[in-house]
């Protein structure tokens, strides 16, 4: 009886209480959303305007003349942008495929098995993900020299694997962490062979994490600057390298156009996988 009264009491009180949970008033929320929107919108709008602007100097706040010069230059073969674009794409795609292939078995084991040294492996995986692997890149440079891997695409791909493989592994492991292996056993009992189990049971279950892992491996490789510079030695020219070059040269319109070329694939990839990204920190291996 007492229980029921208490229960009724919370039921009755619950409604107004949850409604009045603290938030920095509605204006605060609106302000925050607006500020965040600015972080996204201002750079993109600025880059679009600046890439079409001509003779846009101090003190003109808005450009007075527009031209297609920057875009024509970016599209022309003499700027080297198209070559760099293909180079970036090729390197990032190879790195993505290799990262996912390497990460798949490792992620499964890390998420579903207990073994000695697991914490150490996770620590080593986190290191290059969180802190850019500068020392390791400088260290392998000498080794790569001996095997003719410096100034080569293969060398650049290898050095990109240092941050990309750990990232893909950690992302995929979170997908496997919630995976019930019993379903695989059930499929086996029903007569599915190993490949079909993987194809029709395991793969669909981890597909969202797989997409996120692949997307981030791609994005990390795509935005590498220093590792590409050190190992590629200005022979493997990717978009970030050419972009920084134009920035240093002070050509604002071309830098802006190039920034958009560099930015768009990252946004596209991100929008495609955004719905699979979970921000739930509770799941862990």
């Amino acid at each position: 009886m007492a229980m029921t009264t208490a229960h009724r009491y919370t039921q009755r009180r619950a409604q107004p209480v949850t409604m009045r949970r603290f938030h920095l008033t509605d204006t605060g929320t609106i302000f925050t959303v607006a500020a965040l929107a600015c972080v996204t919108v201002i750079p993109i709008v600025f880059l679009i305007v600046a890439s079409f602007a001509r003779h846009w100097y101090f003190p003109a706040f808005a450009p007075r003349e527009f031209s297609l010069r920057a875009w024509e230059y970016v599209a022309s073969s003499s700027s080297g942008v198209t070559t760099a674009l293909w180079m970036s794409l090729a390197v990032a795609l190879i790195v993505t495929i290799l990262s996912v292939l390497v990460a798949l078995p490792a992620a499964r084991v890390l998420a579903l098995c207990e073994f000695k040294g697991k914490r150490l492996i996770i620590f080593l995986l986190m290191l290059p993900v969180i802190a850019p692997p500068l020392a390791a890149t400088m260290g392998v440079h000498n080794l790569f020299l001996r095997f003719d891997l410096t100034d080569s695409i293969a060398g650049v791909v290898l050095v990109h694997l240092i941050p990309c493989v750990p990232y893909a592994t950690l992302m995929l492991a979170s997908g496997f962490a919630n995976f019930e292996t019993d379903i695989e056993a059930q499929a086996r009992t029903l007569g599915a062979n190993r490949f079909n189990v993987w194809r029709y049971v395991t793969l669909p279950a981890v597909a969202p994490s797989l997409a996120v892992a692949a997307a981030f491996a791609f994005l990390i490789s795509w935005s590498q600057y220093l590792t590409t510079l050190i190992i590629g030695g200005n022979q493997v020219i990717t978009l970030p390298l050419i972009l920084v070059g134009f920035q240093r040269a002070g050509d604002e319109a071309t830098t802006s156009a190039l920034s958009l070329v560099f930015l768009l694939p990252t946004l596209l990839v991100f929008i495609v996988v955004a719905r699979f990204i979970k921000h739930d920190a509770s799941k862990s291996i």
Partner: protein
Amino acid sequence: MIRYSRFRVALMLAPALIVIGGLFIGGLLLALVQSLGYFAAIGENAFTLKHYAALIHDEEFHRSLFLTFALSSIATIISAALGLMCAVSLREVASRSRFASVLLQIPLAMPHIVIGVVLINLIASSGLIARLAFAFGIINTPAEFPALTADAYGFGIIAAYVIKETPFITLMTLAVLVRAKDEYELVARTLGANRWQLLRYVTLPLAAPAVVSSALLVFAFIFGAFEIPFLLGRTYPAMLSVVAQRRFLSVNLSERPDAIAVAVCLAIISSLLVYFYMRLARVLVRLDSPTTFL
């Protein structure tokens, strides 16, 4: 939990371990060896600590180390404070609309180089903000505008990281807040807590672990990152990664072991930070976290 044989565990981990052990750990060890006097290209082939000893008396290294610590701390503290505020104020919206969470995620996908390029054009002495100041008659020439890029206080570097890392800390904190049970607040409300008490004694303690651990990640990242200080910072004193890069790519090969010594110091500090993070986040790792590490 599945039981695999030890052999099978080793076999499945092997490809990843080859990359981690071979390229990453191998690279770190090679870096260590080369900074300890085994750098054949310049005729060094005996153990020496001179490259590290040189750092002790290296004025640039001291200033750079101090600058790196200072800028990383300031940018992290500001991002954490703003991130916490954003998370608290977005809590209601985020659980209802996908729009807010997508909006938060987009800055994470923006490469640091692009943020740097745009920011230079906004805050440089002839940038858009200076032009606005001119339009309002506050300044007459670009020279009158305060130096915000390549300045002594690293304003541009801090601004770029705050823009990039605040959404990250917000997302990590929001994940915890949205998931937090309503019961705590119900209890506090029934006991007569007002809104500020609710914030102080319920919401903040709930959010604190997420804010602190994500701030530690942000600090570790800023400490070792290169692009932003390279684009927006001064050349002297520069942040550690920039110093290491400049010395490594110098025409003078004999500077390479010194560069690697700086990079090894950076790697040691980063490893300690990541270790602290793992101790702090009692569950092993927050895996699903989105990334700023692009």
